[in-house]
């Protein structure tokens, strides 16, 4: 019985990080109707930024997060102007192809530079042991930081003029333009914000597990499931969706082989698309 509780708690902790990974994806979709297929690559860039800052330069792992966020944001803004701006308002296939190309380029460069060998960042945070089960300090820290970052995003979106502009553009770009909001800059900033969130989630994931240049794909897939659970374009729902997905993994694992968990997740994915196309957590929009 304790084992089941342990799995559930573990699931929630990891789920919060899944939620953070999905927030960037859903923000970009919500503001500019772009499905960012480079999201996994951005997650991996966050992982490698942690590796080089922490293992090579010697910056404490959690102190790298603000720097990763800033670099991720700037990279995202540049990426917007290069690869996304011209496909805004075009058929969705255009933005899919464009972001997929970005993903291929980033992964290609990464493979050439760092190979597909795994990298590991040693992070030591005391955990909590309950009976024979240990909840690692890194998982607890990652979940707390994911919650803090989600709260900061909420404050930005709902309690600042910039956030109001982002929501206005998300709601109706033409109307926002008529009220004097520089919508193109808002779109660039939103894309930067989405990439920053992806990179920071990658950094947090890299404190938990070893990773390779190809690791982003698995987290991108999870982000898609979480985004559909939480509702497309709904950052708060993404966090709840991530926690719900982690909870599902935690609750199901004690009763079925772990190799069946992805099947369960994608059955849920299809069910949500059919029964709740606006997301299970649309009410927190």
């Amino acid at each position, binding site marked *: 019985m304790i*084992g089941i509780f*342990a*799995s559930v708690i*573990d*699931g929630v902790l*990891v789920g919060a990080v899944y939620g953070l990974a999905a927030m960037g994806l859903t923000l970009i979709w919500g503001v500019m109707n772009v499905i960012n297929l480079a999201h996994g690559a951005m997650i991996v860039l966050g992982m490698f930024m942690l590796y080089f800052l922490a293992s090579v330069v010697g910056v404490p792992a959690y102190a790298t997060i603000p720097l990763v966020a800033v670099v991720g944001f700037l990279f995202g803004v540049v990426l917007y102007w290069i690869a996304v701006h011209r496909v805004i308002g075009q058929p969705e296939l255009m933005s899919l192809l464009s972001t997929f190309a970005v993903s291929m380029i980033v992964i290609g460069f990464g493979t050439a530079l760092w190979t597909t*060998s*795994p*990298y*590991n960042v*040693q992070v030591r945070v005391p*955990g909590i*042991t309950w009976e*024979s*089960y*240990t909840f*690692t300090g*890194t*998982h607890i820290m990652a979940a707390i930081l994911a919650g803090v970052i989600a709260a900061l995003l909420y404050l930005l979106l709902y309690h600042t003029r910039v956030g109001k502009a982002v929501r206005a553009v998300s709601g109706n770009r033409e109307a926002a333009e008529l009220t004097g909001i520089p919508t193109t800059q808002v779109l660039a900033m939103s894309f930067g914000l989405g990439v920053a969130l992806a990179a920071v989630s990658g950094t947090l994931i890299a404190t*938990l*597990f*070893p990773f*390779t240049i190809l*690791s982003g*794909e*698995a*987290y991108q*897939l999870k982000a898609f499931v979480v985004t559909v659970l939480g509702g497309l374009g709904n950052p708060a729902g993404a966090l709840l969706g991530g926690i719900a997905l982690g909870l599902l*993994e*935690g609750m199901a*694992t*004690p009763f079925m*082989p*772990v*190799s069946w*968990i*992805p099947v369960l997740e994608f059955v849920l994915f299809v069910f949500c698309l059919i029964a709740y196309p606006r997301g299970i957590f649309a009410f927190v929009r």
Partner: protein
Amino acid sequence: MKGKNPGAPIAFVYKDDPFVYKDDPFSKTVVNETRGLATKMGFKIVFDESYGPDTTDFGPVINKIVSSKATALLGGGHYADGATLARQLYDQKAGLKWITLLVAPDSPKFATLGDAAVGISVPSQWEPQVTYKPDFGPTAQAFTKAFEDKFKIEPGYHAAGGYTAGLLLQHAIETAGSIDQAKVAAALNKMDVVTMFGRTKFSTAPKEHGLQIGHEMVIAQWQKKNGKILKEVIWPKAAKTADIIY
């Protein structure tokens, strides 16, 4: 260890042992054979589960291993998943006395896991540190030095195995005193030698003629010495460089 005798790799599977392995043909084949041997040797398998190729978080699997009260673990699949499993077993203090994983611990990069690597063992065909006393040809150390001087990289078992194949053929030709195929084949049939790769003997039974039956797998274990994480050979006795840590 059973009777303090690390004779066969399977002896590292203690009672109440789990199997966790990657859901692919290579891992499944290895586990199927090991499972049968473990059962035959009286070990109790308390956990037996595969994981998917895209598994990134082993937390739930490790919780199940802890619940099974296992004391040893055999498993793994390839590099990325094996390294992640090893790190999470350490982070989650899984309380296992023995861990053998396929593939991942064989790579020098496994040392980057730091303390999480210590104690993890891996079956291998050959390691550069083996201390076999060859009947002919170079020692593993001499071969390794020459290889590194030429190619600037540590030789793996593929390189050592290929080189040894050439050595054995040369030895068979010299023994036969001819390059006549029948005479060389007869020399190979009679061959029972030790090279830097270990013992070599070929089966002459009709159903498995030519199969290698002399070679023993090497077991390597990551150990910490003077603050350094090193891979040591712990089996077979003829090739070991350090005692087993259990």
